[in-house]
């Protein structure tokens, strides 16, 4: 008995050594297993062609493929399109499609589905589609495996918007009948992706099973993906800690818990996989009213905000000071420019005070120059804490700030319909191309009452409009980058908004989960190569 007790660990050790010695550099992918991922909050639907909300994208991207995928340099790679050519004038893109691909209902995928998806769906009901594909005149289908996109003007940004998340390819035979705004298959999606929709128990989970007829032979490796909904952040943390779930993205695990979780031997924390989303925390100023109608006041406030302190105390180090409207993630393709006014200057407080004096807002007897109300984006505690910090920071330069916190519908109406605000915190996804995610905040033609996350600062700058419109249709990448550099310089100097931080979302995962993070779209990808150890 005694001998046996020693024998077992000894054998185990020997086996361990053998495994380590015999395994090659990379581990072989293993088939099977269920991935439980926490998706927060529960998605309102699965119609990713109609609603781009994050929870929808995380689930639907496993079901619907796109024409392209992207690598970390934002370069396109084949997906449903196996190759493509762009005409020299940038107005025609010809896609050659994969052959032998089947939708989950067994019907074949052809160029007719591509034509239908772009012309009848994305251009009409997608939240961003009418803007992204506004110059797309037609999709020609000379044969079942060729789709020719004809644009009236060059659309260099469109190539960045063809992922399964941004532009999911739908089956024409399913979606051509019925009301697209309220389709019976909205919540019973049928795509070509590696996972098939099985069931949605509202309030609990969505279950996706492996698609055995997936067009990439041998993939996917996982048998099943279950998206679970847990409304309480503490419980989400507990579920990860107990290994009931293996993945929680989009900062579903609160920052305060991360250092503790990170210390666990089986947990990974990553900030990668959001490069094509690039959220920027900013403060929108109402430039049509006193005091923010004055450029000097806007600049002063921008100087007075201590970005580093906000990142360290509110976002617990997960972030990077923002310098302007385009995220530094776009350094990878040259669109980002550092050559702008630096509001994080060492003498920032001094500058702020000077500018406020010049703008005609001297300190009064009690040291206060003027009072403002700070509307807080109602997306959780972090934003409230940021508001409290801003009260202190602006207090130092003589601006008295009162905080206002409302629920989402009330806030949306106040900021984007009634424009009844002065100083509003927000975070915006700047997306894979400035045309898609940046223009909306600064282009004067995007002052559109009633449209959430449009241009609420409402500063009209003809030069900015001109640059944005030119960059939209400039097919030459270097020239386009130069236009954006100019745009950044002007708009940062005008400061219609205050750029605070480039927010880092965090992804908490089990170390057993491999190869899920393969793209700047992170969890918005299909997980066709993800596997569990």
């Amino acid at each position, binding site marked *: 008995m005694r001998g046996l007790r020693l024998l077992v660990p000894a054998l185990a050790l020997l086996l361990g050594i053998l495994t380590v010695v015999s395994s090659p550099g990379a581990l072989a992918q293993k088939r099977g297993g269920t991935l439980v991922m926490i998706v927060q909050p529960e998605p309102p639907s699965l119609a990713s062609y109609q609603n781009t909300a994050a929870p929808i994208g995380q689930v639907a991207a496993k079901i619907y493929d796109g024409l392209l995928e992207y690598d970390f340099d934002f370069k396109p790679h084949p997906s449903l399109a196996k190759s493509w050519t762009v005409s020299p004038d940038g107005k025609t893109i010809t896609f050659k499609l994969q052959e032998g691909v089947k939708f989950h209902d067994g019907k074949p995928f052809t160029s007719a589905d591509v034509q239908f998806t772009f012309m009848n769906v994305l251009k009409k009901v997608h939240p961003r589609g009418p803007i992204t594909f506004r110059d797309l005149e037609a999709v020609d289908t000379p044969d079942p495996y060729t789709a020719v996109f004809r644009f009236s003007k060059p659309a260099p940004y469109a190539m960045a918007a063809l992922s399964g998340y941004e532009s999911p390819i739908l089956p024409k035979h399913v979606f051509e009948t019925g009301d697209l705004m309220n389709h019976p298959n909205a919540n019973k999606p049928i795509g070509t992706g590696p996972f098939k929709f099985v069931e949605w128990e509202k309030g609990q989970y969505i279950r996706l099973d492996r698609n055995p007829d997936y067009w990439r032979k041998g993939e996917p490796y996982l048998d099943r993906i279950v998206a679970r909904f847990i409304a309480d952040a503490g419980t989400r943390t507990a579920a990860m800690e107990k290994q009931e779930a293996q993945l929680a993205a989009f900062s579903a695990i609160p920052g305060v818990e991360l250092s503790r979780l990170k210390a666990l031997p089986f947990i990974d924390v990553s900030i990668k996989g959001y490069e094509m989303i690039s959220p920027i925390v900013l403060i929108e100023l109402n430039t049509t009213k006193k005091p923010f109608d004055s450029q000097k006041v806007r600049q002063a406030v921008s100087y007075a905000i201590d970005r580093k302190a906000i990142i360290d105390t509110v976002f617990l180090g997960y972030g990077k000071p923002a310098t302007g409207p385009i995220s530094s993630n776009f350094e990878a393709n040259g669109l980002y420019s550092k050559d702008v006014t630096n509001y994080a200057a060492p003498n920032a407080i001094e500058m702020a005070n000077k500018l406020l004096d010049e703008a005609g807002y001297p300190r009064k007897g009690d040291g206060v120059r003027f009072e403002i109300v700070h509307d807080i984006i109602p997306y959780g505690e972090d934003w409230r804490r940021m508001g409290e910090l801003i009260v202190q920071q602006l207090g130092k330069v003589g601006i008295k700030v009162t905080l206002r916190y409302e629920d989402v519908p009330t806030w949306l109406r106040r900021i984007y319909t009634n424009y009844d605000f002065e100083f509003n915190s927000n975070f915006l996804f700047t997306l894979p191309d400035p045309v898609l995610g940046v223009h909306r905040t600064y282009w004067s033609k995007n002052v*559109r009452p009633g449209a959430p996350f449009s241009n609420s600062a409402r500063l009209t700058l003809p030069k900015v409009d001109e640059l944005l419109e030119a960059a939209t249709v400039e097919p030459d990448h270097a020239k386009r980058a130069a236009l954006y550099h100019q745009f950044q310089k002007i708009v940062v100097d005008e400061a219609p908004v205050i750029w605070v931080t480039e927010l880092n979302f965090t992804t908490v995962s089990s170390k057993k989960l491999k190869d899920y993070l393969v793209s700047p779209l992170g969890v918005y990808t299909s997980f066709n190569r993800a596997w569990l150890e």
Partner: protein
Amino acid sequence: MRARLRFLARRLALAVPTVLFIVIANFVLLHLAPGDAAEVLAGEAGSATPEMVAQLRQKFGLDQPYHVQLARYLGRTLTFDLGYSQRQGMSVAELIGKRLPATLLLMGTTIAIAIGIGVLLGVLAARGLNTWRDRLISVFALLSYATPLFWAGLMLIVVFSIKLDWLPTSGMENVAAFYEGPKRIVDIARHLVLPALTLSLFYLALYTRLMRAAMLEQSGMDYVTTARAKGLDERTVVFRHILPNALLPVVTMAGVQVGALLGGSVVVETVFAWPGLGQLAFDSLFSRDLNLLLGIFFVCACLVVVANLLVDIAYTWLDPRIELD
């Protein structure tokens, strides 16, 4: 029996205007909140054109004047058609139907635990007045009463789920396994333990205190002295004479609290990801899914009416002097 049936019929008839009044009041109150479902959907999408918002609004029927919307809603409610949740893409009746079992399971278990243990502890405390047993129970009741539900819930998760690894953290069933048959029942029961315990704590404390006070009050009554004088043993005096009389206030309280329980369960459902009506109501409020919210309120109003009716009937069993009339 006939009197009871007549009573039932009359009470049900009276319930109709009550429920209707609740429906109208809810409708008016909810429409006072700024913002609407179309805006929320557009906001969630991250970007949308004003044309799209207008299109959504028209589809949801939100472009109509309020009185038209109210008239339409009332008309539908009278035929028990609760309408359609545009946001969830499902009929309200179906959505509520899917969530109601989870809510009833949690509520039923909670009421059973709270009344069962609460009454027991109350009796024990009253019988051992001012002994260590009474003090211990009183301290326990005070602590349970004063502990915030969400905190108690999270602590139970930490202890029983993470540290001891006995029970799952949250949810209603194991979603990696998808059990079937008897295994599924065991699985759901295991998931039910912590939320039911958490939600019971507060009510348990309440019933313990109430029961203790009622027992003490009844013990001093003349009929108890009479019973003792007849030479009945202590057991019979307590259980046949004092207990049924002392139960009346507890039953009254329980009836009133069915409504509160539905509300209190929002916190517990959120902490334990329990797929009940509370969470659904909470979500639908913040997404201004008014059809759904009104539907939930309607169902809750009906539940409360029925619960009160049951309490009235329970009185007649506990105390034959009370007549239904």
